[in-house]
């Protein structure tokens, strides 16, 4: 538990390096919701192969790494399915309305001092904190 922050920092540097690589090599902003969302709502079908390649790497490399990790890997996702469906819908609609999520607004936006990226991050952190307080401490359901 005490060294979790080191893994957080190492993983964060990897995420940032991936975003830097994608910007300087492919010329694109590494935003997960934008890359995936453009495939879902067809607005990004003009660049489908590049997007699908990104998604393939994103899903495959962690799957291949998992057996080599010493610590057990688990999402610990709740088995409360109505909550999972509601959360998925909120994340899907919300990130597309806002044009970005944790990677696009949080990592890529804040690092270029984008007012929209910083504002979005403040709003989703506020709502995320509030959701945990309400559902964990008031209802005890998560």
């Amino acid at each position: 538990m005490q060294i979790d922050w080191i893994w957080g920092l190492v993983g964060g540097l990897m995420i940032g390096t991936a975003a830097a690589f994608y910007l300087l090599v492919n010329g694109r902003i590494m935003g997960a919701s934008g890359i995936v969302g453009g495939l879902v709502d067809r607005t990004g079908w003009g660049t489908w192969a590049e997007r699908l390649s990104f998604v393939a790497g994103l899903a495959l490399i962690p799957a291949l790494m998992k057996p080599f990790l010493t610590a057990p890997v688990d999402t610990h996702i709740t088995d409360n399915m109505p909550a999972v469906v509601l959360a998925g819908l909120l994340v899907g609609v919300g990130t597309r309305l806002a044009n970005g999520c944790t990677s696009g607004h949080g990592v890529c936006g804040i690092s270029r001092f984008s007012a929209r990226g910083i504002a979005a991050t403040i709003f989703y952190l506020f709502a995320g904190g509030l959701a945990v307080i309400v559902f964990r401490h008031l209802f005890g359901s998560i």
Partner: protein
Amino acid sequence: MLRNITSLIAGGLFGAGLLVSGMTDTTKVQGWLDIFGAWDPTLAFVLGGAILPMMLAWAVAARRARSLLGSDLPGKPGTEIDRNLMIGSLMFGAGWGLVGLCPGPAVASISWGGVGGAVFLVSMFAGMYVAPAFRLRFNAMA
């Protein structure tokens, strides 16, 4: 073709970073958002670690006309903090706090996320699919 390979590499490194950092573990994400509970600071290191390389990348990008593969680099970010950005980010944050997954980790953990992970991802796709209709409605409001 080369664009697709570099895209796969970026996606893979992103996924590896998400796994290593703890972003695919919903209990760590909710533990970070839970400022009134047993607060887990790990994700602050993830975000900080990710922003650092990206700040350098933006500084490099500012001196270049094109990406290494010859495509245009992203233009200046918008500055308008509009209704879609605020409402969308609040919705996204609420979903993120409720279950603990955002779009990148939801894709990265699909191979071990079980039924819950799959249901989340399908719900997120559904949300992304209907998001343009929400946007039109919000834009139509005075």
